[in-house]
């Protein structure tokens, strides 16, 4: 193409709109990434404050602060917000910021679509949250099992369904953008097997997204028609089956949990080599392990349904497939350890979060293995043990990796070093409180305390009090992060182009803060 784009005023590389228009109309991957990250953090605080109320209620046995129905609304919306509003958008924000810089692309492949994907989200959550004031928010759990969400719905099902629909549209468009960017916009010489592992994990995650978000859209649609238009998908009296809901939901749901962890794998595979000053051990095995985890994630969904009375053959199939996932996951954990082995490790804050990730995520993986064994899951299912499991993988897993990423790239984003003392305080406070918060939940679950319950038997009182104290402490600790970020944006020691001496990758070849437009001509890769 001979037509140069530079003759259009808006393509001048210094161009940047100002004020609110910049954020509303932007097509810049860095702006959009920033918005995603802030949105995720705001949602994190929103969902977090709901968790504070939940923990306050559970501080003692008996009902004291909220009534059971409102308690159910809080647990439901807490889960939905954390999954769809905090973790997923945070990863999308990181993808937006970093992928184009890491592969030497000028921007995301479809920049306008990118902006659309983002702006749908605040609207979707406005709808979800406004249902609190329109007769009650969803109270059927983030997994919205029929018939709780159909026959016994409190009237919030329609708002919930349409909010999920537009979130789905946003995720699918976001995923398409990631895939196309990676397939089509890599700098010359950047072959697939030279891509940073971070890029690989987002690539595979994007495939999971476009494969399962439409299934989620399908299942909520059935929910909608069952509730309001008389269809019988999940109604046995019409020939359907409530268990069918669970099958379709978990066909989405299990890949969804990997959508929330594969990017985390990518992040720690970036930070650990940097601070160990070694190359990532077993790069190609990491790529294959990620792909096989993604593949296996499609054939394990019914491990969430062992107690629904599936045929024996089903129980066995899903049990063995689930246990199989431990193999590629183990490959990853061993690769991270081998990367650190004999490295000259230094303990900067991103590395501290990464090491915590490896250890604590592994605990979550182990409890996952316990849950994956069908016969014992009959005991653990629907108890606090499950709550402990998924909070270890999601909070000390996904969330900690997001913190690692944020500290790792904050200098690149803002141009300033963050306040190390405060950041370390954030780390240690989080680390201690998060374990106080979630570790006793294992014992509670094993002793039989059911999940999603506003009151409990007296013998669970002590542990619950500790858990609540841990919860409040963890919640407060997150405000330290907010302080670190604000301080870092406002000022601080100037960051060099490459603040971490072991770091590799194209993003460190541009100045800090990264210029508004990077790589309008692609860099050379060798």
């Amino acid at each position, binding site marked *: 193409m001979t037509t140069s784009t530079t003759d259009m005023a808006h393509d001048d590389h210094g161009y940047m709109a100002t004020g609110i228009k910049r954020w509303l109309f932007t097509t810049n991957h860095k702006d959009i990434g920033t918005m995603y990250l802030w949105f995720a953090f705001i949602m994190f605080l929103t969902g977090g404050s709901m968790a504070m109320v939940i923990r306050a209620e559970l501080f003692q046995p008996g009902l004291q602060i909220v009534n059971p129905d409102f308690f159910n609304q809080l647990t439901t919306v807490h889960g939905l917000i954390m999954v769809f509003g905090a973790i997923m958008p945070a990863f999308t924000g990181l993808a937006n910021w970093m992928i184009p810089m890491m592969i030497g692309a000028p921007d995301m492949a479809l920049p306008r679509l990118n*902006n659309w994907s983002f702006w*749908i989200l605040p609207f979707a959550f406005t709808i979800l949250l406004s249902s609190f004031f329109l007769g009650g928010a969803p109270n059927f759990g983030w997994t919205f099992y029929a018939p709780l969400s159909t026959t016994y719905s409190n009237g919030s099902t329609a708002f919930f369904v349409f909010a999920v629909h537009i979130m789905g549209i946003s995720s699918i468009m976001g995923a398409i953008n990631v*895939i196309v960017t990676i397939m089509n916009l890599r700098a010359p010489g950047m072959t697939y097997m030279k891509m940073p592992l971070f890029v690989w994990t987002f690539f595979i995650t994007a495939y999971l997204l476009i*494969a399962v978000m439409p299934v989620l859209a399908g299942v909520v649609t059935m929910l909608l028609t069952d509730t309001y238009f008389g*269809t019988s998908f999940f109604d046995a009296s019409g020939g359907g089956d409530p268990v069918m809901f669970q099958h379709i939901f978990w066909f989405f749901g299990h890949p969804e949990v990997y959508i929330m962890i594969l990017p985390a794998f990518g992040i720690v595979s970036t930070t650990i080599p940097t601070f160990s000053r070694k190359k990532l051990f077993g790069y190609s095995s990491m790529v294959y392990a990620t792909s096989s985890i993604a593949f296996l994630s499609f054939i394990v969904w019914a491990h969430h349904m062992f107690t629904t009375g599936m*045929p024996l053959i089903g129980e066995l199939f899903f049990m063995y497939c689930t246990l199989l996932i431990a193999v590629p996951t183990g490959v990853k954990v061993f690769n991270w350890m081998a990367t650190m082995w004999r490295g000259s490790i230094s303990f900067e804050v991103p590395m501290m979060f990464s090491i915590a990730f490896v250890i604590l995520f592994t605990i979550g993986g182990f409890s996952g293995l316990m849950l994956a064994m069908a016969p014992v899951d009959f005991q653990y299912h629907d108890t606090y043990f499950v709550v402990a499991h998924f909070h270890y993988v999601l909070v000390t897993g996904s969330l900690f990796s997001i913190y690692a990423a944020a500290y790792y790239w904050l200098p690149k984003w803002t141009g300033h070093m963050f306040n190390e003392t405060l950041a370390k305080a954030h780390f240690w406070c989080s680390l201690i409180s998060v374990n106080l918060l979630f570790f006793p939940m294992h014992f509670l679950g094993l002793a039989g305390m059911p999940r999603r319950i506003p009151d409990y038997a007296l013998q669970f009182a002590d542990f619950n009090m500790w858990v609540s104290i841990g919860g409040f402490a963890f919640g407060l600790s997150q405000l330290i992060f907010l302080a670190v970020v604000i301080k870092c944006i406002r000022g601080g020691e100037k960051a060099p182009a490459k603040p971490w001496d072991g770091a590799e990758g194209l993003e460190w070849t541009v100045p800090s803060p990264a210029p508004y437009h990077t790589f309008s001509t692609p860099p050379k890769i060798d």
Partner: protein
Amino acid sequence: MTTKEYESYYVPADSQWPIIGALALFCIAFGAGGFVSQIGAETEGSGWGYLLMTGIAIVIYMIVGWIANVISESMSGLYSEQMSASFRQGMSWFIFSEVMFFCAFFGALFYARVLSVPWLAGDGANVMTGAVLWPEFQAAWPLIKTPAGGETQAMGWFGLPLLNTVLLLTSSVTAHFAHLALLKNDRTKLKLFLGITIILGISFMFFQVEEYIEAYQHMNLRLDSGIYGSTFFMLTGFHGMHVTLGTVMLIVVFMRVLKGHFTPTDHFGFEAASWYWHFVDVVWVLLFLFVYIL
């Protein structure tokens, strides 16, 4: 790929369309949510419907504006081959996600046919389910008598469904001929075949509506006639919505052809519409097989 191609990758300027689109989806989702939850309530129709309509109006405005934007950029030569590749890949992954959407409904269909309906009649380890819940219930597919006793009739495959199959399959062939004509730059044939495709698509929709009327008025086959009616209408209904969308896309492409757009080497808009059309066609073949015949 050469460096040169990368230099011309077009990063569009700020655009107002995405935020307008997001606002439109907000109005649609919020409006539809409110509207649906008021069904049957005393407050029925209290304003939510207007919000929904506003949303739809905005979304149409947004699509028209955005696409016009893209077309004019494309016509003024801002797009490189690499940019077209992005569009093509984006479109194919979008179609893939649509396939997965239909998978959910096909999955429900198979689950009901193979598992839940026989189980309700006491199959497998579920003898007691049959005996205790609905002892009279007999498993059958199409399920014309539900466990609760509702009765309906099954839609045969002969007649309108068969006619529709022929129409849609033919339209896929004519769409392909139109593509071949475009590649040979034979504009007359292109217009002819594209026109035929559109007419076939519209006739398909017409007969589909006829079939629905027949089902509702004479066969007592309705959305709420148990799992058979649910799967029948949801699958054919969503398919019908996709045919409608595909036809609209074809009509837009047809008008662009009349205006002289598209060249044998550069015709992403045409390709996208025709891919979509083939996709709709394949879904129909599966539907015809599993919803009507088997």
